[in-house]
């Protein structure tokens, strides 16, 4: 059993010793991307990482038991998932560490890690170390270091993830052979993970090559010519992506005969970097920080450009928009200083969807989500005024909200969509 070491504030550290023998668990959010990120982390240090796929009622109940019930739903779910795992008997709790993301902004979500520790204490498991995954250098651990090199590799992995999900979404509703799309995503994820192991695919040139292969492969999936309404999904990052958080929203939309369009995580990453850059301009601060952020932002943007070029070149699929286009679209709605949670990006994504012909949008948020009062629901009136054909439904998620109400609202939006289609 590894020795428990604490830092000067009393935080339990994840030590190098633990890195060797502990299992690290992390809540699921983006199935395709997470798989690749986990692989990169494992390659870096030989960790043993598991992504939690649990989706039982027990997860919600555990969350409600250990987290303040007025806390946002993603906190209840992800903390519930982690504690449930720790209490399940599936792991040796003395060889277990929990990983959770920490955004560090003014949104209450940056508190998740602290609430997780409180929950562990309540459950009598405070000897389990918690690792913060963040881009801001918060909470350092001797046994878990995110180097710049690893960060760069992760960005490449995220690009692949976004590409697979983005074009996969355009195939799945139309595939002739059921399951063909998911099978291809699976096989490409396998292949990419193998490539990463051989240290391949993680550079601009290589990424462009493999992306070309990916897009060409997906273009070969046999598809029908049906016309289905496209429905965009935007919102708070967890309930937007995690099926556990949004009651399998994508699956529901597919069953209802729609094509889900889910903006990728790339823009969110650029957005978070861009915020720091913008902050210096708005309130002052280190010019070096500003330059550093500018360089990092441009790196991710370059990756995004490659991805878009590849899709455009091949010509079968709709590409995503450039970050700069999102920035342009949101003018007159929100300032770039609106950075808590998804901030201005949320509104920009709705605008981008409308401009790219996806007028139907589900805006997902945890019940009582603070930033979305402004960037989500707060902007819908103006969007409707500016784009009378837009068809946006706001759906709140929380442990008490029932599927029936959510589905009824989404069905109304879909009925509107097909009515607009006929017009």
């Amino acid at each position, binding site marked *: 059993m590894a020795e428990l070491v604490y830092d000067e504030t009393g935080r339990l550290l994840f030590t190098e010793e633990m890195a060797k023998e502990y299992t690290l668990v992390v809540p699921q959010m983006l199935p395709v991307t997470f798989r690749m990120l986990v692989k990169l982390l494992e390659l870096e240090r030989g960790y043993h990482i598991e992504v939690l796929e649990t989706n039982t009622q027990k997860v919600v109940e555990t969350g409600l038991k250990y987290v303040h*019930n007025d806390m946002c739903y993603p906190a209840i779910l992800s903390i519930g998932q982690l504690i449930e795992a720790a209490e399940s008997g599936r792991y040796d709790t003395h060889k277990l560490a929990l990983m959770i993301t920490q955004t560090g902004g003014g949104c209450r979500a940056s508190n998740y890690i602290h609430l997780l520790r409180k929950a562990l204490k309540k459950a009598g498991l405070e000897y389990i170390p918690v690792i913060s995954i963040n881009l801001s250098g918060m909470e350092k651990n001797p046994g878990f270091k995110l180097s710049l090199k690893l960060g760069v590799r992760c960005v490449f992995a995220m690009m692949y993830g976004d590409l697979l999900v983005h074009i996969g979404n355009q195939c799945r509703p139309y595939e002739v052979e059921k399951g063909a799309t998911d099978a291809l995503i699976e096989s490409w994820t396998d292949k990419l993970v193998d490539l990463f192991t051989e240290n391949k695919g993680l550079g601009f040139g290589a990424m462009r090559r493999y992306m070309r292969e990916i897009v060409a492969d997906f273009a070969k999936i046999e598809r029908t010519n049906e016309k289905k309404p496209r429905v965009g999904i935007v919102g708070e990052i967890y309930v937007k992506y995690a099926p556990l958080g949004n009651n399998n929203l994508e699956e529901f939309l597919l069953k209802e005969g729609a094509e889900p369009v889910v903006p990728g995580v790339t823009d969110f990453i650029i957005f978070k970097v861009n915020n720091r850059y913008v902050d210096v301009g*708005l309130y002052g601060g280190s010019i070096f920080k500003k330059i550093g952020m500018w360089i990092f932002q441009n790196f991710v943007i370059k990756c995004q450009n490659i991805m878009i070029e590849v899709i455009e070149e091949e010509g079968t699929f709709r590409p995503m928009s450039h970050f700069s286009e999102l920035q342009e679209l949101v003018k007159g709605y929100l300032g770039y200083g609106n950075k808590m949670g998804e901030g201005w990006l949320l509104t920009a994504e709705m605008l981008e969807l409308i401009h790219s012909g996806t007028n139907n949008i589900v805006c997902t948020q945890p019940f*009582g989500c603070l930033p979305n009062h*402004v960037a989500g629901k707060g902007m819908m009136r103006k969007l409707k005024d500016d784009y009378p054909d837009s068809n946006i439904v706001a759906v709140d998620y929380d442990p008490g909200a*029932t599927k029936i109400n959510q589905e009824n609202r989404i069905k109304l939006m879909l009925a509107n969509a097909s009515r607009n289609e006929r017009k």
Partner: protein
Amino acid sequence: MTDAINNTSKADYRIGIDIGSTTVKVIILDEKGEILFRSYERHFSKVREKTAEVLERAKPILAGKTIVLLITGSAGLGVSKSADIPFIQEVFATAKAVETYIPETDSVIELGGEDAKIIFFNGSLEERMNGSCAGGTGAFIDQMATLLNVSVQELDRMSADFEKIYPIASRCGVFAKTDIQPILNQGGRKEDIAASIYQAVVDQTIAGLTQGRALGKTIVFLGGPLYYYKGLRARFKETLNLDDDHAIFPENGDCFAALGAALSTNGFEPQKYEDICARIKESVSDAVITNTMPPLFESEAEYAEFLSRHNKNAPPKTDISKYAGDAYLGIDAGSTTTKLVVIDKDGGILYTYYGSNRGNPVQIVFEELKKIYAAAEDRIKIRGAAVTGYGEELIKNAFNLDAGLVETVAHFRAARHFNPDVDFIIDIGGQDMKCFKIRNGAVDSIFLNEACSSGCGSFIETFARALGYEIEEFSKLGLFVKHPVNLGSRCTVFMNSSVKQAQRDGASVADISAGLSISIVKNAVYKVIRAGSADDLGQNIVVQGGTFKNDAVLRAFEQELKRNVTRPTIAGISGAYGAALHAKDLQLAESSILTEAQLADFIHKAKPITCKLCTNHCSLTVNTFDNGRRFVSGNRCSRPLGKEKSALPNLARYKYDKLLSYHGVEGAPRGKIGLPFGLNTYENLPFWHTFFTRLGFEVVLSPESSRAIYRLGQHTIPSDTVCYPAKLMHGHVLELMNAGVDTIFYPCMPYNFDEGLGDNNFNCPVVAYYPELLAANVKELKKVRYLYPYFGLHRKDDFIKRAAKYFKDEFGIPKRETKKAAEAAYAEYEAYKDEIRKKGAEYINYARENGKKILVMAGRPYHIDPEIGHGIDELAVSYGFVLITEDAVSYLMDKEPRKVLNQWTYHSRLYAAARYVTTQADMQLMQLVSFGCGTDAVTTDEVREILEAGDKIYTQIKIDEISNLGAITIRIRSLMAAVEARERGGF
């Protein structure tokens, strides 16, 4: 659109079935599109059975025919799926019917059992449905009728005779109850309440659903409630200013969605009537509920053991017809029930009463007292009488009782009688949940249910009635079911939709009954008490209150805690029993209670008035009794009683008055600039006022917040779950424009000042970005110069640089001037903070010199707004506290690492203030929390931990647009009682 009337479907008849949350509506159209058959019936949660039954009844018409059938409605989806019948979304069905029959319609307002919808037809078709937070409307009216103890028809009739409308929250039944209950308890007229309930529905529908879009000229009203309740129609017409030509209440307005579904069947495949009937019947047994829990009792034997264990905890009974000697009366005038107990000198029970107060507790107590006197004859003498509960003051005044005591103390007194080792008491009444720990013989920490989950006990009752059962029968149904349905542990409003879902999935009434009992328990344990395990509560738990008379609830509680608890047989009347014991403890020679002779002349009249003495505009009820006794209720302060305000120092009031003193200089050269008086302005007004005054502007502050200001901007609020302080901002900017201000300044400020107490200095997202939300939602702002730039005051030099540029670009002000003004503004802000701190120190000294207790009211700066704080500060002061605010002590502490992320300036103040309070023997802290404040989900637990670690009592008050003075009073008085008890070294 008349082509929908014609049957082009190739079937003989077209049918629409609308299955809503409470009713099934069926419409059958004949060949010509005429209505051949219609039915509107409650389904009492038996959705499939009822649908099958109604179709069966139509057999004489339909036998052997081909039909096309569409199902619609929120509970219809399940039937549609399992019986393989096509579904149409109900808003679309409704729109179809409206476009067919009333094409001139501009908009439709439809109220159903639990849904409220507005459909806009003018311009682009747009629908709005109530959000997940909005409780029902029809169900809401049902609930309110139950509360008033009248039928819905009577409620409607009564509403015609109203004189006065009270403000009542209709966002959900629970909120409204907390509004109505005090009015009832204080003797308000039921007729007024009836009309007020309807008005609340109207306000909620219009404000909540229109969100700024105009309804147009011709409005069609649909749905059961609007079809059946004349009073509700009248309120809508009056509020919307509609004449008979433009307010259309169509024939079959209760079945319009079903009608629309029938009209939409053209193009669907005809089927045989008998086939469809068979499919629906088959689907009846097709129920699959996956989310279930273990049964409450496995067997009758287990239940019998349970009963005998609990029945042991009984006080002795004394025969009132034989006893002679002293007796003591205790009354618990609860929110929905009134309880009376008369005990003998040893605590034996002579007489008990437990019953609904039927909206008039005075009458009940009057009748019971007469009975008691009759039974007492000359043998028994009442030597003391005490009252507790919501109606305490009223009853005490009405009958000249000797004492009143706060509920928590009454319950502790009773629990101690049965179990001297009691360390945790939980009382779930009709309306409130009170839990408290006992440590060292004194009340230690008190948990009361927040505004959002109150009404737990009466919720089951209302639900039972809605499903057509009496409460006793209903709760027994659940005792032995194999699979209670899991309804979640959220506030009761959400349970409505959970139940709806369970119905859809085919859960039986018994499954739901058991599920509801379990829900109430989970709500209490996890939401109110926030316990992690049974050990968090205690070893010796005593349960009390009417809700625990329900065996299902008690069993669920024991199951959840995994330990046995004590339920005295008098659980339902333990408050009254405790009051009686308290009366006995007084050891009076003579009770002042009205004698039998005085009772004969007893007269009670209640008259509602609105107090105009301050902006709170309390709804007062003036109760007059025989012999000139008079009692005013509903007040927050003593002013309407003709007395002066309490003279004890109140720093919240001082701060507020200080802020109001910052007004502009008329005729300033650069013209007027408006600042909305809310949210961050409460912190930064000294700064911006000085800044703009120095720049040569006349600063115009929007008026003091009020309900009227809220209403003014209500229709532009896009998110109904945002906090009340934010909602008020809409009215504030509109008021500025009404005052002729054409430049409004309201900056976006993600960062606050860094006071060195936290790891960062953020504002919450709402405070930070609300200016942008206003720009996008308050259309009038387009007509003026609305400035909402991003600024950060926390980096002075950077701010000055950026401000200089901004005001040069915007107004052409020379940079030099702006720099000077900013310097002065920073200085003023410092001076203001300094003044508050000095004043705080002065008040603390005053308290210490005069032996007063000090209460730190900790919240956000804007909680001192009397419209937001509802005069809680005044109330606390009236109970004998000297009140200071968190910023008067937070600066006395240094930064210390916290277990939560401490990166919001206001939070840092809370934590620092709480830490300071733990170092001061004579200080207590009360935290104010806005309902819907997401960040306070973090701060409340942390502040509680800090205080409890420092051996202090944590008191939290949740505030909203609706003030629940009763609950607030309980907290403040319990705190005072607990502090006093601790000083005495226990009770």
